[in-house]
């Protein structure tokens, strides 16, 4: 089978097995990835199962154990922590039609909102909309909800938020105000586990979704267009692109994969992230949440951190699996 066929087949299988898997204790997400053995990426496509906590087999009830293989595909169990979720408040806010002046287009108010533009939880400064997405299931079928995708630290104020909090487009720093500029309500986020003096828990994504009204959300990304596929196997050397609220359209080159990185969140808080993609510098403060794509509009990851010389990106497969969302089709 061609590689793409294998991934499609795995997606099909994990789709089918999801009910069974989610019935097990501890399971918080299912996705497609590569089998990692003793921190080694074997390159073998597998079903990645995210659990809140990795436990010794002896401590699990037999029905809670994830089988080593499902329908002929290996499984990989990854510890991801609890994922906060809750019903979103779907208050419809009045939409203002006031014209914004300014030269920085991505910091302006726009309806429908689209990828690349400013967004933020009402208590933060501003970040970027990756794109708009929908529930992983039912598929195929009628999605119940539509969301804006961005980072936890953009939509959920680095864990300091409540489900249903207003999300503003543009973000507060760019003039967004409650209630006129409310585009969505915080729906789900993957909590960031910060380092303590004694432990360095591993994070995989800094991601969240906020539910909005379908007619207010476009999944086009300014200057990039529409996501054409989800790229499962980025390589070192690949050229990638993003559109973000601060540095606009930029390109970069992947310089490392499966990276472990310490990220500073301000106020002395540091979080360790594993399995990250590192690129040459292609972002600055305010670009957090941008969707990074290859040059054929294949989604590679969610931009969330960087320095003057590098940019750090969460693998999009983990983002989809942990939030239970779909970017494409």
């Amino acid at each position: 089978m061609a590689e793409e066929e294998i991934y499609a087949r795995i997606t099909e299988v994990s789709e089918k097995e999801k009910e069974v898997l989610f019935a097990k204790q501890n399971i918080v997400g299912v996705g497609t990835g590569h089998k990692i053995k003793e921190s080694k990426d074997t390159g073998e496509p597998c079903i990645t199962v995210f659990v809140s906590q990795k436990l010794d087999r002896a401590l699990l009830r037999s029905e809670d154990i994830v089988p080593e293989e499902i329908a002929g595909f290996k499984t990989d169990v990854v510890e991801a922590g609890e994922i906060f979720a809750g019903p979103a408040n779907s208050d419809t806010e009045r939409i203002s039609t006031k014209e914004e002046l300014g030269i920085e287009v991505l910091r302006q108010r726009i309806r429908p909102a689209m990828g690349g533009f400013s967004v933020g939880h009402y208590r933060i400064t501003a970040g970027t909309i990756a794109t708009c997405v929908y529930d992983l299931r039912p598929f195929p079928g009628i999605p119940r909800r539509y969301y804006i995708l961005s980072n936890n630290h953009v939509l959920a104020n680095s864990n300091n938020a409540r489900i249903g909090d207003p999300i503003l487009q543009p973000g507060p720093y760019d003039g967004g105000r409650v209630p006129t500029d409310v585009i969505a309500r915080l729906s789900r986020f993957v909590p960031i586990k910060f380092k303590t003096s004694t432990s360095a828990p591993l994070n995989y994504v800094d991601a969240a979704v906020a539910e909005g009204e379908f007619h207010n959300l476009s999944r086009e990304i300014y200057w990039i267009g529409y996501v054409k596929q989800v790229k499962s196997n980025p390589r070192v050397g690949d050229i990638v692109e993003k559109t973000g609220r601060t540095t606009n359209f930029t390109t970069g080159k992947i310089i490392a994969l499966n990276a472990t990185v310490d990220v500073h969140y301000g106020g002395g808080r540091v979080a360790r992230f594993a399995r990250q993609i590192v690129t040459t510098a292609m972002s600055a403060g305010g670009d957090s949440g941008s969707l990074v794509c290859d040059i054929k509009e294949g989604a590679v990851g969610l931009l969330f951190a960087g320095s003057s010389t590098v940019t750090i990106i969460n693998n999009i497969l983990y983002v989809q699996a942990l939030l239970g969302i779909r970017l494409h089709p």
Partner: protein
Amino acid sequence: MELSIQEAISKVKDKWMEIEGVEGVGEGKENDKDCILVLVRCKTAEIEKAIPTTFEGFPVKVIESGVIQAQKEKKKR
């Protein structure tokens, strides 16, 4: 037996991440060959001493990344 790049990295990653000034460790490439990429805040004599130039046969490339920060807009209004 020779280690793969992933095995080599997993062997030292935790130790190197504990070194003051090391911000990240990952799989990189140098002249199309696998290498261990180490991101450091800035290159210092201590880091030069602590990080070898090769590990388990893989070249170790140290690059200055500065501090890596979450990238929301930093300024407050």
